[in-house]
């Protein structure tokens, strides 16, 4: 297990280095000179030249890369080109927002996906299973922004149960925080719920056909105990989907963040891309890769716990 853990961590670090380095060069290639975007319409050539020098853009690209990279290794991602504040401070402000919504969506998707998946797995031909099939088609077909807008119009504008926009930090008010993330989390979770339920149902049906399940029943185990055994063996596919979904939501939360006006990393990514704030983009890339590596690492640990054979893969 120790070697397995070290191997996974090493590959994660390698991925982090490769992705951030590639992002550095691609961003500089794509954005070029960002000074006009950073200074706005009224910028004069003299202002742009001054900013060019201040940002160190007159140095060779490899010198700039080494400067960034050597600082990044020490945890210093530099300062934003937009407001000259530390990148890490700005990302630290945004990460809790996105994580709040994405974790809430993941928990919601896992809980409801588990309930629906097990229920339909127990009765694969039942009414609920048919509803699930229909729901999976419908919810996959509906664009996320449309679902978000419907939720806003219904629960924020008409019923006024939840705020239409904004985020309240957990440290400020627990109920306000929950209220501000509920609709975004539901919007993100809806399609994930059916995805997980479908995976779980399919796994459930497969596993239920196995000889050992019949043996367990023949031994006189209760349905609950049998269900728990089946669930454990049927869960890896759903767990993998859940992990992939979590990573996908981190990157895909941007639409929901815009519609609900949440100051998360999605919004920051969008604004940084628009104005060409490369240090922020690099910081966000690093953070996202860290999350991807962590989630995959945790997934591997869980799958390794469920099935020791995968530790050797």
């Amino acid at each position, binding site marked *: 297990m120790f070697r397995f853990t070290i191997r996974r961590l090493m590959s994660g670090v390698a991925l982090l280095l490769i992705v951030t380095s590639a992002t550095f060069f691609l961003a500089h290639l794509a954005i070029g000179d960002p000074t006009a975007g950073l200074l706005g319409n009224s910028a004069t050539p003299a202002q742009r030249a001054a900013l060019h020098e201040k940002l160190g853009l007159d140095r060779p690209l490899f010198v700039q890369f080494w400067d960034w990279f050597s600082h990044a290794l020490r945890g210093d991602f530099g300062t934003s080109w937009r407001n000259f504040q530390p990148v890490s401070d700005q990302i630290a402000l945004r990460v809790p927002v996105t994580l709040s919504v994405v974790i809430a969506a993941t928990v919601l998707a896992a809980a409801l996906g588990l309930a629906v998946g097990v229920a339909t797995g127990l009765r694969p031909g039942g009414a609920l299973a048919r509803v699930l099939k229909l729901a999976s088609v419908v919810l996959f077909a509906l664009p996320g922004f449309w679902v978000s807008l419907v939720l806003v119009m219904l629960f924020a504008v008409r019923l006024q149960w939840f705020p239409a926009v904004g985020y309240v930090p957990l440290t400020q008010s627990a109920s306000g925080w929950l209220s501000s993330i509920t609709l975004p989390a539901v919007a993100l979770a809806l399609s994930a719920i059916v995805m997980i339920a479908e995976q779980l149902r399919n796994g459930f049906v497969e596993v239920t056909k196995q000889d050992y399940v019949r043996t367990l029943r023949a031994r006189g185990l209760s349905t609950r105990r049998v269900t728990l055994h089946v669930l454990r063996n049927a869960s890896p596919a759903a767990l993998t989907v859940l992990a992939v979904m979590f990573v996908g939501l981190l990157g895909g939360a941007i639409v929901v963040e815009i519609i609900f006006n949440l100051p998360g990393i999605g919004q920051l990514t969008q604004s940084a891309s628009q104005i*060409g704030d490369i240090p922020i983009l690099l910081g966000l890339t690093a953070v996202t890769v860290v999350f991807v590596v962590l989630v995959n690492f945790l997934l591997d640990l869980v799958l390794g716990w469920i099935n020791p054979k995968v530790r050797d893969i």
Partner: protein
Amino acid sequence: MNPRVRATLTPRAEGCDGERKGGFLSPSIRHQRPSYSREDSMKRIWRVTLAAVAAFAMAACTNTTAPSDGGTGTDDDIKIGTLLDVTSWDPAQADIGFDGPYLSAVYDPLVSLNEDSDPVPGLAMSWKYSADRLKLTMELREDVTFSDGEVFDAAAAVRNLEHLKAGVRSGATYANVERFEEVDEDTIALHLKQKDEALLYYMGLGRSWIASPAAIKAETLATQPVGSGPYTFESNTSTPGSEYVFTKRPEHWDDQTYPFATLHVLPIADPTASFNAMLSGQLDVAYANATDIPRAKERGWNVAADVATWVGIQFTDRTGERLKPLGDVRVRRAINHAFDGAAMLESVGQGAGAATNQVFPAGGPVHDPSLDDRYAHDMDQAKKLMADAGYADGFDVTMPMSSIFQPWQPSVEQTLGELGIKVAWKDLSPADYQKNAATYPMFVAVLALDSNPAASMDGRIVSEQWFNPNPSTQDFPEVQKLVDEALDTTGADQLPLIRELNEEITEQAWQSVWYQADNTYFSVEDITVTPITGMMFPTLRFIQRG
């Protein structure tokens, strides 16, 4: 199915540890544990799930926002939704565009603007130019202290102006200032290298916010604003990027101008989200999308709008150095005649703006409505001008394009195509557009307007800008003559000359302006907003009760 999933099925199936310990047919196991049927399992799952969802919903449903017709419902509070987050709390690093509501809360300016965009006193109670207009002397208020207890005086003003002059974003305003002088405790002087008729306007627009000198020295302004403004920033209850909260300072010298006890500013980038926030009662004032105007009026909200940008084609090669046809005024006029600006305003601009072919704001002192017919849409006339110039078959041109300007791309391609002008589009990222657009002989532009005539003349015609790297006035003797005359005069004498200049550049088809687009603001019934051309979002003094 995932191969790893399949691999788990058999081995774990044999690992039923608990049951092995109990024995295959151990009666104790069967008797000690209650037996659950499949139905029981389902019921339990559903009960737990429903209970969890209900608890979550109950806990989350704490929104107590106000009436559905907009408004936060509290008399002393105001919630303002603007388009962008604050760039920086440091006035030297802030942007004039959308930073106004944030910075005007915590800072007082030396100079403000009134509703006509004329400079009016702020912390500078009065000012006077020397006869040669190279020295501007300002008398300062004496009763002002910053929120950290520091006193505002001439030394503080000079320290701030030096800080602003050195600022990357604010420096251009003071480019013509040689030095700042502390004349006495309450008097300062700005010594100019050359006459600058737009200086006071730019200072009033958002380039003279005054911060505590101690905060400037500590270099903490970017995140911790310390000013003498009407409000103090409440960092503990604010959520950066989502909502900024301010409370009114007692006994502010301009107390009457700021009627709200608590101020909330919410940056909301998406107009739909902003409109929904108004609908749900989370906002009192919102930066709006013109398409929502009918719905806003149905709800009884106030709608305020004024021109903010001009939309059209910017020519960067009027001398024809890179693209010979553009050096012929008949070709530039043909392009002006070819576009139906009024139709583009309706179709792309949702009718929110003014159809005009001038770069001076419609309704302003320089704009001449009679010139708007100078290039009335007339494709026959346009083709005739092209033929007269020797380009009856048109010519090829490469133009930049980015996602922001795509709404106009089909019209441009079709209209120029009718003149035989074949456009090869070069796709650029939005960030790259500003860098590279002006390297092409012409490009689609949306450029900010200024309400001050001298500032407009300088920014749009005379000085080198990213969108106008080669002003080329010297190549047009009539234009240069009027520019020189206008720069030599001042005040009331200058205005007629700028009007003449506007007429001349219209005649020279300096740009192909299709229309001027509005910035639109919605506010609840008892709050009014006065838009100011030049400010993308007005400062707080233009948001009032009534």
